[in-house]
């Protein structure tokens, strides 16, 4: 069984933790040993959130090592740009086209990087950057909160794990009244990139 390391980066309140929990559960159901790590604490106050998910035959560390993440899931553009040193050569960075301004930018003391700059930062590591219209699609579906699940839908195209497992895990792990919405979001993410893959 091949090891696959996933790094999630986002902003508190974006659903990064739930999405990484879903991914860990999918790994478990597909027979991988799974470990996951995240930093809570101040994160729900709008701070940066990172989460590591590791699939493998045997996983020791819950943390991914620098230079070995196979996938970066950027829930927010600036947050994605912080992690090139974690990416393995040939890694795929799926980045939600969504900007959340940090305080220094709001106060006019700093500049939010351009899309091109973010792409350059991430591709130095030899990563392929794929922009995902997760935020736009989520708004279209009626809830900005499901952008992360759109991203998972996109990710599922790059992995060999059966789509039924993804759907079953999502249905079980999201709040019951948002089940349908999340399944739709997952499907949308899958379709969006099936085309441009």
């Amino acid at each position, binding site marked *: 069984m091949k090891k696959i390391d996933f790094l999630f980066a986002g902003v508190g309140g974006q659903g990064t933790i739930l999405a990484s929990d879903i991914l860990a559960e999918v790994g478990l159901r597909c027979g991988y040993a799974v470990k996951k790590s995240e930093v809570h604490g101040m994160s729900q106050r709008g701070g940066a959130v990172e989460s590591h998910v590791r699939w493998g035959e045997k996983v020791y560390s*819950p943390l991914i*090592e620098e230079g070995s993440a196979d996938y970066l899931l950027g829930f927010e553009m600036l947050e994605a740009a912080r992690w090139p040193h974690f990416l393995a050569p040939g890694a795929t960075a799926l980045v939600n086209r969504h900007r959340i301004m940090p*305080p220094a930018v709001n106060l006019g003391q700093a500049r939010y990087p351009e899309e091109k700059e973010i792409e350059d930062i991430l591709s130095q590591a030899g990563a392929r950057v794929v922009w995902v219209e997760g935020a736009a699609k989520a708004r279209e579906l009626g809830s900005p909160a499901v952008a992360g699940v759109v991203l998972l839908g996109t990710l599922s195209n790059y992995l060999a794990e059966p789509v039924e497992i993804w759907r079953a895990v999502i249905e079980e792990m999201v709040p019951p009244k948002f089940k349908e919405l999340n399944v739709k979001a997952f499907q949308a993410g899958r379709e969006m990139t099936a085309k441009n893959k």
Partner: protein
Amino acid sequence: MKKIMSGNEAIAYGAYLAGIKMGAGYPGTPSTEILENFARYPGVYAEWSVNEKVALDVGVGAAYAGARALVTMKHVGLNVAADSLFYVAYTGMKGSLVIVNADDPSLHSSQNEQDNRHYARFAKVPMLEPADAEEAKCFVKYAVEISETFDTPVIIRTTTRLSHSRAVVSLEEEPAREASPAEPAAYERNPAKYVMVPANARARHPVVEDRLKKLAAYAETAPFNCLEDGDSALGIITSGVVYQYAREVFPTATFLKLGMVYPLPAGLIRELAGRVKQVLVIEELDPFLEEQVRLLGIPARGKDIFPNLYEFSPGRVRQCAAEAGLISPQEKKTFSIPALPARPPMLCPGCGHRGVFYALQRLRTATFGDIGCYTLGAAPPLSALHTCGCMGASIGVVHGVDKVGVKDRTVAVIGDSTFFHSGVAPLINVFYNRGTSTVIVLDNRVTAMTGHQPHPGSGKTLMGEEAPLISVEEVARGIGFKKIDVVDPYDFKNVVETIKEHVKSGEPSVIVARHPCVLYTRERHAPYTVNLQACNECGNCLRIGCSPIGKVEGGVAIDASLCIGCGFCAAVCNQNAITQVS
């Protein structure tokens, strides 16, 4: 059956499986979820005590009465509870007592990076340290067994990385509700064991020393201390989550993986040293294991290679090992990452604390702070909090400042949960010692920072029952305070006037600034919007540090999806340029 659990969930599950019936603790990252999860199991009682010391005494009482008890707290919580740890180390107990203590290497959410393994040696009690969630589950059972066999409290140490990482845990089919060997019964009186007056305590000390020797002997064959065979170049002594990192970096080395970090198995350590050319100790924070290994006369290496600061990771262990020549150096890729704007945590949109801190900023008070969400009042642009040390420190500190005659306007600010935790005693101190300090209690009715746990001012218990709601102002009145005001922190003009008047009054006083946590109550009103024609770009609204408000060409704009409609920005706008969307 297998399930993915966090270290904290696994500890709670293990406690349930081990027949623990009573749990007490005080919330503190990264320990909080242990008790929250434990409370959901059938047939158990769990409580948020007002502070860690009370929680430990509650656990001691349950254990004295023959029950199996669990007490949880973060590392600095054990500082608060240390007095109780030291007496129960002497008395032992009839049932069993497991203390789970969460360290925070890298200070993800703490004021220091203390290494609580020292408490085990200091208080002469055993300490276990699991390395993943499965072990976390199992180690609670071991801890109960050790506690009952050796008549001692047992500490389980976790770290943030263990508590908050998730891994696969095997579920036990039918949670076996083992009966405690000492069934809870009427409290048995045994003053020589439980009354720690000097004569009795003097007699208990040799018992404690003897117990440590027995525990060290037990450590030699205990199932959680394992020699793992490998090649003979390096023998690595390690424990906890650091074991996982070391395993990735040194896949073929010989390992002594310690599940119990105090007392140590001298025989196993000597055996490892006899098998390998070089002994290496890999541990986060202090050289706690290394020093004890060296005391055995073994020339181990450790802190000369792996630093005593911050948490480790596979990459960090690899880099240190490569620098020391233990492994071949990695080809290092360098990246040019331009300076990206940071994203620090801030007070939430609509947070009531903002109103008080903005008023304090305008009044230029010297503000002595405490531990909680409101510590974020120190961050720019509010920059309105000038000290933060530990739980409950603010009131004693402002009293000391006031007693030496500082002429600034001074105030203490303390949260509601923190007030009940350790603010009442210093408030009595201010009044008794004829102080003149003004104490502002930021009352949002819940322990917000750690994820909304109830406290004595919430009207609810951890078990979900209704509870008497203890009023901060009534407590102050009971002490004897005459000058007490309750304000709504959104009422900006009133807040400013009230603080001014209290500070000037020259008598001890209390202001309760009360607004329930909006993140908890999910309070939401129509958002506010900016009329750019009326905006004169004075920057007042930017100075309140509310994340939906951002600078744009010719003024500011409010992100309607983030704004909860508290209206505080409109209250500080001199141009009436900010209005609610109707």
